[in-house]
């Protein structure tokens, strides 16, 4: 264990991390966000979805330090008397979950299509890349919105409530596969002509086995970097869709839904209901973005 830690400490990545205070802060904030989200059921001061514990008399309580607030609710409460801090922690759980799942889906889809495109070539390649070109000319959020909107209309009401989160993951995932496919296709084209792939072909391995066992491990590096940066984008897309009211159902509020709910009370002076979830979203997205940028530079041999 100690040896492993020491090895990590001396590793290039750890060295570049030690040299960049901004990245260290970003890493710390990301860990705090992830920790708060993952362990929300144990860390959160209240359970905002336990209807029995809610008291409408506690609604619209301002943050604790403003004087008229209660120490019980450090960041105040919303219109239903839910503790804002707890709803943020539970909301971040959903935001992060949807974001990571959507990126995983986009990654698997994009990498598979990119491998096929690069390895098989010909018409398959032309078709996949043409679809990618066309999709790239539309903004990702518009595509996610359209897929989500169409699914919302196409599915019956009672089913949609249960399927809202998977549909959202699918919509955001489909809107983001192109980047992965293009990168993987490019590296696959390079790897394909190398001797080890030719050797595998001569030995008689099937194309599928060559793609998965030989080419794939050699094209994953850049994909992981794109994935890190994509998580921030996916979280923003999810928040935007939920803010527009077409994302997660109100029974499972994500950060975007919380901001949407709070937005209605902005004018009556209850700013904390929307500002704190907003601040949480900004912190999460900004620190994940900074981490992604750092990872890209740290892994880029040209910049060393």
């Amino acid at each position, binding site marked *: 264990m100690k040896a492993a830690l020491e090895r990590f400490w001396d590793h290039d990545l750890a060295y570049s991390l030690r040299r960049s205070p901004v990245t260290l802060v970003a890493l710390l904030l990301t860990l705090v966000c992830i920790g708060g989200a993952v362990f929300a059921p144990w860390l959160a001061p209240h359970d905002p979805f336990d209807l029995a514990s809610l008291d409408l008399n506690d609604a619209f309580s301002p943050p604790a330090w403003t004087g008229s607030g209660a120490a019980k609710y450090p960041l105040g409460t919303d219109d239903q008397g839910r503790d804002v801090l707890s709803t943020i922690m539970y909301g971040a759980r959903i935001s992060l979950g949807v974001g990571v799942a959507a990126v995983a889906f986009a990654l698997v889809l994009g990498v598979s299509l990119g491998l096929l495109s690069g390895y098989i070539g010909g018409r398959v390649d032309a078709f996949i890349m043409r679809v990618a070109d066309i999709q790239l000319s539309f903004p990702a959020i518009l595509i996610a919105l359209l897929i989500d909107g169409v699914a919302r209309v196409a599915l019956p009401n009672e089913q949609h409530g249960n399927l809202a989160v998977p549909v959202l993951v699918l919509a955001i995932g489909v809107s983001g596969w192109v980047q992965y496919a293009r990168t993987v296709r490019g590296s696959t084209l390079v790897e394909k002509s190398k001797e080890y792939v030719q050797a595998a072909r001569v030995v008689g391995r099937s194309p599928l086995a060559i793609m998965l066992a030989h080419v794939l491990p050699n094209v994953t590096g850049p994909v992981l970097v794109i994935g890190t940066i994509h998580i921030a984008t996916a979280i923003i897309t999810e928040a935007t869709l939920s803010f527009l*009211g077409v994302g997660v159902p109100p029974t499972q509020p994500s950060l975007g839904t919380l901001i949407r709910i709070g937005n209605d009370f902005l004018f009556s002076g209850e700013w904390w209901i929307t500002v704190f979830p907003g601040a949480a979203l900004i912190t999460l997205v900004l620190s994940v973005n900074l981490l992604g940028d750092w990872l890209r530079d740290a892994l880029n041999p040209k910049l060393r």
Partner: protein
Amino acid sequence: MLAFVLRRLAQAVVVMLVVGLIAFSLFRFVGDPVVFMLGQDATPEDRVRVTRMLGLDQPFYVQYASFVARAAQGEFGLSLRQIRPVSTLITERLPATLELSFVAAVFALGIGIPLGVYTALRRNSWLSHIFLAVSLIGVSLPTFLIGILLILVFAVVLGWLPSFGRGDTVDFGWWTSGFFTLSGLKALILPSITLGLFQMTLIQRLVRSEMLEVLRTDYIKFARARGLSDRTVHFGHALKNTLVPVITVTGLQLGAIIAFAIITETVFQWPGMGLLFIQAVTFADVPVMAAYLCLIALFFVTINLVVDLLYYAVDPRLRIDRAVAAN
């Protein structure tokens, strides 16, 4: 040249047909129009009659073809929620979205280009660092949060600007404009900043990096060696060559502005097409959704086509490459 134009045109038509197919299947597979028109307790004879009247007994491709023919004339039927023709609803809402997008684009270009030039020319001044830091935040903040923060500061706390709606508008036939009244102009400020901020930071960063690149080239060195003033070198030689990619990106971003208007319009309750679309999605108003889908696709396809052709016309290298490849 002709082959290039034709190929791009064919691609555009294919995209429109695919989008049309999605819109068509929305109609076809969401709910049963016959039940919708006759109610649950209609006789089987009535059903057959209405099915035939609506042409629903014909094969899929015939129905699709007639849908495309009607869509091409802008006919999408009645909105389910408002019981009015979709085309009327859209023409009513179009001016609001186009005016907002126009002001946002002017804002993005008018502020983005000067900031980009400044940060490129005075690379190490503290003001440049501030501009770059602000642009980083502008890129990473979601649009709707920027809108909410602007409302909180300028409408709720300071009370200077309105936070929703278009203010008073003036009618010119079917076009309603907010440009000619004070309240209309005031109402435009916050939404257009919200909508244009992302594009502004994008243009600023693009102009800066292009300008830095151009300033390193030989012809700039020669221009300086000839003893031209800094002003002439920067604005006569460098900026001019920076603007070609900027024009392309701006063209492509126009479509993005119209699409992102959905979010801004929701935040500011701006009575445009985007708000219409979001309401249609929430209420499963299929005709409005289908019409918006086709219209926004048409915008994008047209803009992409025009930008491609412009690029081809502006950049002679593309033509030579193709000529070489052809031989």
